């Protein structure tokens, strides 16, 4: 088992300084057939690898454990199981015993991400899903189906039309429920299906969704964001982990526009510019940025208005990105600043509570 680390934690000789706390980190298992894209997905999200560079990737034959400790809200252990069907290996699903011996199925594991290559045949997915459901049965029998969710990532979909995406998602969902029903556990395990690609935002969004399920503070963060959004008449607010670009929380309002993607792109811009003109990777608490966009609102196509993406550093490697209309911003900077400070204090308090709990 090789252990790697990403993020800002101090390291000694390549090992992570969190031996005592490590056991408490929620765990995500990453599995699926060979060449489905597991390693690529992990490297693109957590090691900032450029998607096109993944073509040089050698097949992975080891269990790879990565401790991710980017920021207070993205702390997890990611375990990648190689897809090769070696006998006695955890991915040899028919051998549930081996899986058990590896001790990956316990309370700490919060999600199992199952990566499938959408460019492979439908029959091959059926086969893989069947295997996954054997595992699901095991999870259910062990009484872990409340704490472990199954997340199917239908991967490599960058060239797919939206209709096609919906279609394959439907097929996969049907195959899953058929298999679960056959095993007599229909409706008893949590299972969702995502369409992903490393060449666009989908992989970040889907992974964020999974990781957020494991974050106990999500509700509190949502409340804090709601308060700020309402007081400042913002359109939408997101909290991002700057290192992985994962969205860790957002306000509860339902918004037609897909700002999420642009906000995440903004993080890239901020990081890239800081690397050039600032002090490199170091997180800067004074980080503050505004991008202005001319948009047509989804509600009223003819109305042209200016929308601001407003980014502020909240805590180490955590940034808030808000969408706010120009009219709600002009002359109200004081109000926004005040509310932001309140928000940041709330988050800081949350982080302190989290840390003291751990001690």
């Amino acid at each position: 088992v090789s252990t790697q680390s990403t993020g800002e934690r101090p390291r000694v000789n390549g090992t992570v300084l969190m031996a005592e706390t490590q056991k408490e980190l929620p765990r995500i298992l990453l599995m699926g057939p060979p060449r489905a894209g597991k390693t690529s997905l992990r490297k693109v999200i957590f090691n900032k690898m450029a998607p096109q560079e993944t073509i040089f990737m050698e097949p992975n034959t080891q269990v790879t454990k990565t401790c991710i400790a980017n920021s207070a809200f993205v702390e997890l252990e990611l375990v990648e199981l190689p897809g090769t069907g070696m006998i006695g290996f955890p991915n040899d699903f028919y051998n549930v015993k081996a899986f058990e011996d590896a001790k990956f199925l316990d309370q700490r594991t919060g999600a199992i991400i199952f990566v499938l290559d959408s460019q492979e045949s439908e029959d091959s997915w059926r086969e893989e899903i069947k295997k996954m459901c054997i595992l699901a049965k095991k999870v259910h029998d062990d009484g872990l189906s409340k704490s472990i969710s199954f997340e199917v990532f239908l991967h490599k979909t960058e060239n797919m039309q939206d209709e096609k995406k919906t279609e394959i998602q439907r097929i996969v969902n049907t195959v899953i429920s058929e298999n679960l029903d056959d095993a007599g556990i229909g409706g008893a395990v949590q299972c969702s299906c995502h369409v992903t690609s490393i060449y666009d935002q989908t992989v970040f969004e889907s992974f964020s969704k999974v990781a957020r399920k494991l974050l106990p503070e999500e509700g509190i963060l949502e409340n804090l964001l709601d308060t700020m959004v309402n007081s400042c008449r913002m359109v939408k607010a997101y909290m991002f982990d700057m290192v992985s670009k994962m969205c860790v929380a957002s306000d509860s309002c339902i918004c037609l526009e897909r700002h999420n993607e642009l906000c995440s792109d903004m993080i890239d811009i901020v990081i890239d510019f800081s690397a050039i003109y600032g002090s490199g990777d170091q997180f800067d608490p004074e980080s503050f940025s505004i991008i202005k966009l001319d948009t047509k609102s989804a509600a009223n196509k003819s109305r042209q208005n200016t929308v601001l993406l407003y980014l502020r550093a909240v805590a180490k490697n955590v940034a808030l990105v808000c969408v706010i209309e120009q009219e709600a911003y002009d002359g109200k900077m004081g109000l926004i600043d005040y509310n932001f400070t309140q928000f940041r204090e709330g988050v800081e308090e949350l982080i302190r509570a989290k840390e003291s709990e751990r001690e």
Partner: protein
Amino acid sequence: PSMANVPNKVLLMGKHNTGKTSMRSIIFADYIARDTRRLGPTIDVDYSMVRFVGDLVLNLWDCGGQDNFMESYLKTQREHIFKHVGVLIYVFDVQSSEIEDDMQKFEECIQAVAENSDTCKVFCLIHKMDTIQLESDREARFRDHRARIMESIGKFEIIDRGGAVTCFRTSIWDETLYKAWSSIVYSLIPNIKMLEEQLQCFANICEADEVVLFEKKTFLVLVHATMREHKDVHRFEKISNFIKQFKLSCSKSSSKFASLELRNSQFTAFVENFTSNTYVMVVMSDPDIEAAATRININAGRQHFERNSLASGEIH
């Protein structure tokens, strides 16, 4: 000097499948790199006209590289293709396994352009560098290839190339693409020296660390004024690439990038719409200068540059 007698034809040549249309589509037609996989081979010549800053209009001739087309350019269409060429951009695929043949075709084109356009500038792009994994190998391959090109070029004394042939290593997947194309465009802009001087003045007035002018649509760097030395020599093309990518994301969600202000404890960077066909970036590190003051300076600069140096159709 009026543009009328300066040849502004830009020939984009090279063998089939080397990536000519891909580059052109990314720079001038807002393609994203991944989408170039869908491009078909170019049939004969694809003509396009790109209005650039000031007086500069590029007549881009993207010449399909399949053997039969190449042959017809060199024979029946020889004058039509190779006359009045301002710039020849010749593209090589770094993965090619038939380098002898590549060089022979290249020499034939150089011969033809030398005979027909004696002031033509030549840029060679060693392309698809991303297909080599290690940076050290990339650099080595580039040097080898460049040596071969220089050897070939050495055979032709006729061209007044204003110095030399310029070689770049490129890939559609990173900022090297912007580096190469910015240099090409730079070599074509009339009055570039004057523009540089004016930008220098402007940077002084702003007390900026750095001011950069980008062409609005392509986000290629036109000129820059750097007042403080900087460690990253590739920063301009990187920024071109970042902002271009961001602009494309914006258009996907039916919005348009308007401006950017980025601040932390060490610097403030502004990227704003400047004249009718440029964007400006101003980078400041003096914490005593208010953002509002910089904005006022940018507004004043905008009027000045629009009137004096970047207006289209005027001759200075």
